[in-house]
């Protein structure tokens, strides 16, 4: 029993008004699927069913794409940039105003701690809409020629780790540039996207500009393969990304992919150790490690290996795992039973391959999907846990002796999404950054996101960038 036991501090669920069932959002209205069925979205922290959600069939996807096409031709494409901007500003403001509701719903459906959905996800969602709202009437200044044109209808498929944030990353630039969208949220986390559909209604967004088709992988496949889609944007696994890249081959569809990662977080012996430890913890345990750019490989310079490991363990013992709606929770629930199985399986492989596993003492709830924060020491480059994306709160720790060795190890992966560098020496940060084959390099920080800052990967972590001026390119006919 701790001396200072924090009493439960649950965020109220009452701000969320969940309906028992949700239809598809097509052409400005919620409609029942015509050739689809339905599925249940559950709270991963309790396994309670939150709502019944429509599963779109091919006919439904077709309807959505047609609605998007019509809106693109008749309304959104011809609309003046400054009016598109005003719609996006409206949406941004409504997101701010309904922020608490969105945060609670996100935590309920995804399992992430309310502190993260409240302080990170939802504010970033609003910021993203604000940022791209501002581009809608400034496209001629964006560096893509004097008269950049939209692409048309975008088919967008997003993952479950940051449901609403990934929606914002997809929809905000698409709409700013003058495209219309059909978006498919992940099957385990469709609810905030549906609430977003209500927000579009509240903003009087013209029908068909945003269409949300819920469903699983098959719905997503139907969407990206639909001939009426001009642009495909996907965030998710490298495996599915590869399949999509194949499927658009030979078409005129534009494609951007934001896929997996196995980022190295590199700690030098002159690093600000306390902040580095915070960065390591944030890098891998933020959002239960369900982060494509997670710092899942820790590379520590040998001369500080012991103190860093000890500080890390001490810090991990402070992590509070449990009820996502408790304001003091640091680590919430694993998003699904399937994901929990994968994390367990890879962790067992880690032990079987000879790495040493450690977790702080930690009581996990009986119901729901949970996994204690875990580190593996004695990991080598050859271990599967050092190569494969686990997408959970599991850190593999390796060591290095020289900067060149750190670069070599960091780059020795098919992925290339992100990397972290911890050192007090500025010139070394820049030297390392030049050599790291990764789309985002954080120095003395980690997992930082901003709408103005382009995000995306090298190599098998995908192509195209989301965020910033670069994020417009994917949605312009350039």
């Amino acid at each position, binding site marked *: 029993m701790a001396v200072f036991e924090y009493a439960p501090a649950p965020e109220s669920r009452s701000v969320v008004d969940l309906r028992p069932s949700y239809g598809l959002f097509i052409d400005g209205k919620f409609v029942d699927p015509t050739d689809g069925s339905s599925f249940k979205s559950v709270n991963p922290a309790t396994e309670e069913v939150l709502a019944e959600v429509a599963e779109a069939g091919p006919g439904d996807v077709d309807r959505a794409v047609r609605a998007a096409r019509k809106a693109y031709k008749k309304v959104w494409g011809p609309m003046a940039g400054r009016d598109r*901007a005003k719609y996006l500003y409206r949406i941004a403001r409504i997101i701010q105003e309904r922020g608490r509701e969105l945060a609670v719903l996100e935590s309920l459906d995804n399992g992430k701690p309310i502190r993260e959905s409240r302080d990170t996800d939802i504010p970033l969602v609003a910021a993203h809409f604000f940022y791209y709202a501002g581009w809608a009437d*400034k496209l001629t200044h964006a560096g893509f020629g004097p008269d950049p044109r939209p692409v048309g209808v975008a088919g967008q498929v997003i993952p479950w780790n940051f449901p609403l944030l990934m929606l914002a990353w997809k929809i905000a630039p698409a709409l700013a540039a003058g495209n219309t969208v059909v978006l498919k949220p992940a099957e385990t986390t469709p609810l905030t996207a549906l609430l977003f559909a209500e927000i579009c209604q509240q903003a009087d967004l013209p029908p068909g500009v945003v269409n949300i088709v819920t469903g699983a992988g098959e719905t997503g496949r139907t969407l990206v393969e639909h001939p009426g889609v001009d642009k495909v944007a996907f965030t998710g696994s490298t495996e599915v990304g590869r399949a999509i890249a194949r499927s658009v081959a030979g078409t005129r569809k534009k494609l951007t992919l934001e896929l997996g990662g196995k980022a190295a977080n590199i700690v030098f012996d002159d690093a600000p150790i306390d902040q580095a430890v915070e960065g390591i913890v944030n890098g891998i345990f933020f959002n239960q490690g369900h982060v494509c750019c997670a710092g899942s490989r820790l590379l520590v310079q040998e001369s500080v290996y012991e103190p860093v490991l000890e500080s890390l363990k001490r810090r991990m013992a402070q992590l509070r795992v449990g009820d996502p709606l408790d304001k003091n929770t640091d680590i919430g629930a694993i998003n699904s039973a399937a994901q929990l199985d994968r994390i367990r399986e890879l962790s067992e492989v880690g032990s079987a391959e000879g790495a040493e596993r450690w977790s702080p003492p930690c009581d996990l709830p009986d119901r729901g999907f949970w996994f204690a924060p875990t580190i593996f020491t004695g990991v080598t480059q050859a271990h599967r846990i050092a190569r494969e994306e686990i997408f959970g709160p599991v850190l593999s720790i390796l060591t290095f002796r020289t900067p060149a060795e750190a670069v070599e190890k960091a780059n020795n992966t098919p992925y290339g999404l992100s990397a972290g560098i911890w050192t007090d020496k*500025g*010139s070394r940060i*820049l*030297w390392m950054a030049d050599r790291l084959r990764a789309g985002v390099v954080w120095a003395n920080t980690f997992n930082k996101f901003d709408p103005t800052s382009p995000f995306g990967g090298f190599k098998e972590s995908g192509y195209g960038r989301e965020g910033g001026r670069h994020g417009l390119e994917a949605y312009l006919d350039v």
Partner: protein
Amino acid sequence: MSDVVEQSQRLAVRKTYKLFVGGKFPRSESGRSYLVQDSNVALASRKDVRDAVVAARAAVKGWAGATAYNRGQILYRVAEMLEGRRDQFVGLGLSAVEVDEAIDRWVWYAGWADKITQVYGSANPVAGPYFNLSSPEQTGVVGVVAPADSALLGLVSVVAPAIVTGNTVVVLAAEQAPLAAITLAEVLATSDLPGGVVNLLTGRPAETAPWLASHADVNAIDLTGVDDPELARSLEEAAAGNLKRVLRPPAQPTDWTADPGVRRMTAFLETKTVWHPKGV
């Protein structure tokens, strides 16, 4: 019967038009006023200019230090508040079209807050092991002589681009268009804009502008509203005293409804280039 009529005719409460300095609405320290559209308007003096510059200077650190996102949010808030007072401006005799354009102009510049750096800055591939990045940065306090031909849209079009990048301004409102200017100040005062970012003086720019142009603690001056070429030349000469950045009056009358571009922002930006070696 006649009593009833008299009671139903409510006697209006008239507004006092004062200066806007440091987030407050003082009268001119000179105690002077002049008559515009049947209202007494404060006639600012050189000491009001001095006070306004002090207020503007004090506000630079906080305003320039705010995140671009935050500045953008505040400019957008100005648009929201202005929209709510649309009718008030129409009541001052402005056309609805002009008021709408003025609202939209705030929205346009709000969006620039976090984009001008991306459009106007650069990563420079110098021939050597150096990181090299150029970023725009506010110049500081900008004196603005507001145009006389567009009481609201023209005013907004000169103020918003100066402040969105982190400058603070001392604006000399056009002599015959002070009512819209002070009403706009009331909008600004209720828009989360920190006091001192915009300071607005009514009166005779021909009298006050020389003090602003020669003030050593002013970094730049926008002469857009100076119609007299001789005055413009003398103001530019005075501005040379501390090498103020000068935006000259337009050669042709300005179409305030046209796409303003980025020129009015870049006129009041410095470029800072940072070098840093790269090595283990």
